[in-house]
């Protein structure tokens, strides 16, 4: 569905400054995949999406989207995709219902199907009461839901979503995902989305592509990434004189990694936390060491990112700046 080779984009900001926003991304997405692109602010996510949706021309490299080259056959590409940008797609002086219906007509739906899909989307994204409102009078989250509705109205075979759920409250986020996933099922859509929400990438996407400084630094399933890069962590609180004993026991656990002692806490990295925890507690008790508290800390994508870059995703802000 998507195939890019060494895709790069430089922005010439001034005579002395060029931003290398995307530096050689090669990516293949198969039909039906749901891929989350994760990365800090300025990583190059939007720039990549804008190249794939024919909005800007790559500086170098190639990209085929839905079977067509984005530079030489951009109008063929545009007919086969949907795009929800990072900004607001709906015109501020327009009415909600008008924009949604119009978007369907733009994509060649006949009036009846366009009307029908408009009704459905208004209903399921809880915009029904707002159909007659002007877009400028909507709240940020309502506007975002309208943006996504406009991206879905023609049920594209390939949908790009740039931070679709930013600004939504938890209930609407869950509802939005329900709807997107249902439509994906029904129309066998391929979806590429960007997000900062780790839990979202984690729970929605089968595949997570981590981008930093314009490069892909990891590309796998969320589970595999977490397993490979971080592993689970056990936290045990034991009596102050028992750490060294517990430390020895922990070292014998299957797949045990790095062990830290912090006050009366013992932290152990293991491959499979839920399986290792009862073993460790049992061993401690057999050795007469009481365990006060015990926890399994499963790695998050934030841990993965920290592991890959040495920075936390929350704090990271890559800027691809370099002298020209």
């Amino acid at each position, binding site marked *: 569905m998507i195939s890019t080779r060494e895709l790069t984009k430089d922005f010439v900001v001034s005579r002395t400054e060029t931003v290398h926003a995307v530096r050689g991304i090669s990516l293949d997405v198969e039909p039906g995949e749901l891929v989350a692109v994760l990365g800090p602010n300025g990583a190059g996510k939007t720039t990549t999406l804008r190249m794939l949706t024919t*909005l800007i021309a790559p500086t170098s490299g190639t990209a085929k989207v839905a079977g067509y080259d984005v530079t030489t056959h951009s109008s063929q590409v545009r*007919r086969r995709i949907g795009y929800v940008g990072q900004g*607001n797609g709906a015109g*501020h002086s327009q009415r909600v219902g008008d924009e949604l219906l119009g978007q369907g007509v733009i994509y*060649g739906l006949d009036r009846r199907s366009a009307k029908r899909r408009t009704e459905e989307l208004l209903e399921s994204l809880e915009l029904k009461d707002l159909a007659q409102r002007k877009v400028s009078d909507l709240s940020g989250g309502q506007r975002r839901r309208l943006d996504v509705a406009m991206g879905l109205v023609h049920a594209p075979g390939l949908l790009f979503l740039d931070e679709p759920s930013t600004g939504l409250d938890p209930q609407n986020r869950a509802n939005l995902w329900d709807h997107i996933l249902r439509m994906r099922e029904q129309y066998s859509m391929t979806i590429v989305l960007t997000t900062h929400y780790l839990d979202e990438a984690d729970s929605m996407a089968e595949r997570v592509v981590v981008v930093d400084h314009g490069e892909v630094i990891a590309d796998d399933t969320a589970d595999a990434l977490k397993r490979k890069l971080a592993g689970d962590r056990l936290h045990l609180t034991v009596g102050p004189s028992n750490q060294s004993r517990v430390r020895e026991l922990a070292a014998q656990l299957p797949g045990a990694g790095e062990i830290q002692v912090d006050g009366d806490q013992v932290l152990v990295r293991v491959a499979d936390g839920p399986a290792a925890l009862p073993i460790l507690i049992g061993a401690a008790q057999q050795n007469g060491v009481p365990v006060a508290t015990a926890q399994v800390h499963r790695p998050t994508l934030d841990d993965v990112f920290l592991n890959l870059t040495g920075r936390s995703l929350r704090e990271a802000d890559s800027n691809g700046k370099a002298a020209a």
Partner: protein
Amino acid sequence: MTTLIASTVKIDAPAIGRRSLLRDIGIVMTRELKPVLRDPFSLLFGMIQPLFFLALFGPLLAGSMGGSLGGGVWQWFVPSILVMTTLFGTSTTGANLLFEFQTGAHERMLVTPLSRSSLLIGRALKEMVPLFGQAVIVIAVMIPFGLELHVDGVLVGLALLAVFGIGLGAFSYALAIAVRKQDWMFWMVQQTFLFPLMILSGMLLPLETGPGWMQVASKFNPLSYLVDAERTLFAGDVWSSAVLWGWLAALVTAALGLTVGIRTMLRSAD
């Protein structure tokens, strides 16, 4: 949470079918007209300045040169006001596009299968509608004050304004696209052109009494020909050569505006 199940109506990649430029233009124009039709009072927005000129400048004009204008001051001044309304309305219309650049609405349109030129042509053609609405208001308001109505002249006059307005609107959109990264430039450039064009067209005061250089400059101003043509038409003379010059000026403006506009629109993505 909603319990609605999405319908099972199957949509087979409808966008892949044949597309026509005319249909695209129609879609863009309809979208642009929606806010005007939903809120007709917005028509008055572009008319505030012209109506002030009509109400405050008209009487002054009548007092100072009513005698020398021949055929009454309104017959002379109402066509000016119509051209002025067109000028104010269409030269500012690019600001709407500028706003859509900022919000992301234009970006969304650029990713749709709509042809890029239709995004410009549809917008420019839409300018006709508010312009007609505004002209009808001005004419209706002025009839009780003694404006003589020559229906054929007025109809041709409105058509002429429409063609000119399409061209000027296209220029305004082109300007908006060109300055999209420094949006304050839009108003600076627009104002810089607006007032010289207006004054050097003889719209407000006859130029015959002005200095020679002004009369020469006015010959290079397409608006001069438009104003002359409108006055001739409002006097009921449809077949005069002034009207032909007016058409020439309007058609050249429209052709140039659309050409420049489409060319900038094609490069409006990044």
